[in-house]
């Protein structure tokens, strides 16, 4: 699990380029950014609103707020549970401080943003995870927000779409994090029993306890190209089998080939594809304009 992989600092120099070409992609605040796909430094504005490298078409990771903006119809997103705040079940040293600094950095209360919105004019519940918040790990708040989102969708007979981006369970909350896997999965099961649609969109990275719970439970599972998706971390597997793994291992394409993803969708096409899927499952069989 890559819970605490370091992010590149803003404005990396040419020298730094060589040393951490494998580091986590993210969009820092500087003018230029280094692409972790091709290692080239590109102007930030050249990435465009979809945050794609103009040189090699590598996808930069994007935060939850930005993803909501890209996905939901303009001004339709109503956020749920804005003020929920993690406590510290293990009394893990400095956990509260960590949460606080992450909240300040990302502007969200934990590693998922949840709410309802319209996509292509159709009402849906939407949850978006943020890999920038303690590696998108799932603790009490993530588990509770997603569970409530499922319950809201079930009660209001709405579909739900979840964008996953997570290193897995939040280690700092111990067994309480493990229990979130069962809690969310049970809520997903209730939603499913009500005959409602659940779509997951796997983005880079989706691993560990999130893969082993709600990420793999969608009626339809989409993925962005080349996203890392797996159960165990690459390092752990390499240590277990004492071999190097091929590059494409645990990529979206690998999962598609092995039958665990329905479709790989390019970032710029996601809103349209989601609109189409929602339309297929719209109970009235037509668009609900307004």
């Amino acid at each position, binding site marked *: 699990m890559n819970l605490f992989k370091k992010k590149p600092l803003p404005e990396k120099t040419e020298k730094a380029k060589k040393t951490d070409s494998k580091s986590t992609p993210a969009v820092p605040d500087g003018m230029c950014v280094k692409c972790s796909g091709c290692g080239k430094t590109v102007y930030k504005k050249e990435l465009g609103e979809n945050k794609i490298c103009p040189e090699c078409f590598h996808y930069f990771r994007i935060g939850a707020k930005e993803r909501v903006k890209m996905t939901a119809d303009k001004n339709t997103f109503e956020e749920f549970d804005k003020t929920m705040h993690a406590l510290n079940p*293990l009394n893990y040293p400095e956990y509260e401080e960590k949460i606080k600094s992450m909240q300040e950095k990302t502007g969200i209360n934990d590693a998922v943003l949840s709410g309802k919105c319209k996509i292509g004019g159709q009402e849906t519940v939407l949850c978006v995870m943020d890999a920038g918040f303690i590696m998108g790990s799932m603790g009490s708040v993530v588990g509770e927000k997603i569970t409530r989102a499922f319950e809201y969708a079930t009660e209001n007979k709405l579909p739900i779409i979840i964008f996953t981006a997570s290193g897995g369970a939040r280690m700092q909350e111990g067994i309480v994090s493990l229990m979130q896997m*069962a809690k969310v999965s*049970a809520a997903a099961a209730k939603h499913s029993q009500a005959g409602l649609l659940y779509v997951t969109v796997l983005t880079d990275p989706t691993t560990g306890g999130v*893969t082993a719970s709600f990420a793999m439970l969608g009626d339809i599972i989409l993925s962005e190209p080349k996203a890392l998706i797996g*159960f165990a971390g690459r390092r752990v597997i390499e240590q277990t*089998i004492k071999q190097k793994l091929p590059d494409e291992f645990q990529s979206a394409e690998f999962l598609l080939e092995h039958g*665990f993803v329905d479709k790989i969708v390019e970032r710029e096409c996601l809103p349209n594809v989601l609109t189409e899927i929602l339309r297929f499952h719209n109970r009235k069989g037509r668009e609900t304009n307004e």
Partner: protein
Amino acid sequence: MYLQKYYDSTIGKVVKPMSSASDKVKIARKVSRPTALEYINHIFTGFIELHGDRNFKDDKAVVGGIAYLNETPVTVIGIQKGHTTEENIERNFGSPHPEGYRKALRLMKQAEKFKRPIITFVNTSGAYCGVGAEERGQGEAIARNLFEMANLKVPIISVIIGEGGSGGALALAVADRVWMLENSVYSILSPEGFASILWRDSSRAKEAAELMKITAENLLEMGVIDKVIKEAAGGAQNDFSFTANLLKTRLENEISELTSKDIQTLLKERYDRFRKFGDFTE
């Protein structure tokens, strides 16, 4: 006074009081610790083992089948470790592949069809991490079990008899009652893994074990489990029939209580059992 001295010089020497979390980790992992099949053979009668996931293969890290608890037909499933290296290689050290979880789900669905209560015995350091496991969807297999177990229309009791390691343990422990043997541990990850991820230093495993709240006592207090089954001093291997008989009595009582509930109540209570977990404010 004399007795205390006598105790210290004899039994006390051999069987030190074990209380710290890292001591429990050691006991839970002992190769002599009784395995799932031993409990199954002791507690139930007429066990018929059923094999395979009807899809890929038979995973020997997971055993399951049908048996009687006194007169009641039940489905039993366990994660099986071995006592010797040879046995452990055969059982993959109790680390199931996806097909193991899928075999378990097949047997649980069968139990639902024939209205048999389900009893699972959990003992794994975690689901297997390997190429085949990823290719065949380890994450999906675990997720599917969590999803399906939440709604299985028969009573389920899970007993953690050794290690309860992460999602690989939870995949057989979404139950109406979750119990632990006194010296078992149940955790998000092994203490070594926890120390390695959070502190980049797996040698701090002992410290991690104390911090993580992984003992039966801790977890009972947190409501993660519902009952602790006593073991002989030093671990269940020192008096197997004591623990196994105790467990049998508890299972008999609990199964008869759970089967007397109507299904909707049972499912609602199971949902609420897991719904309550979370430590947050608003």
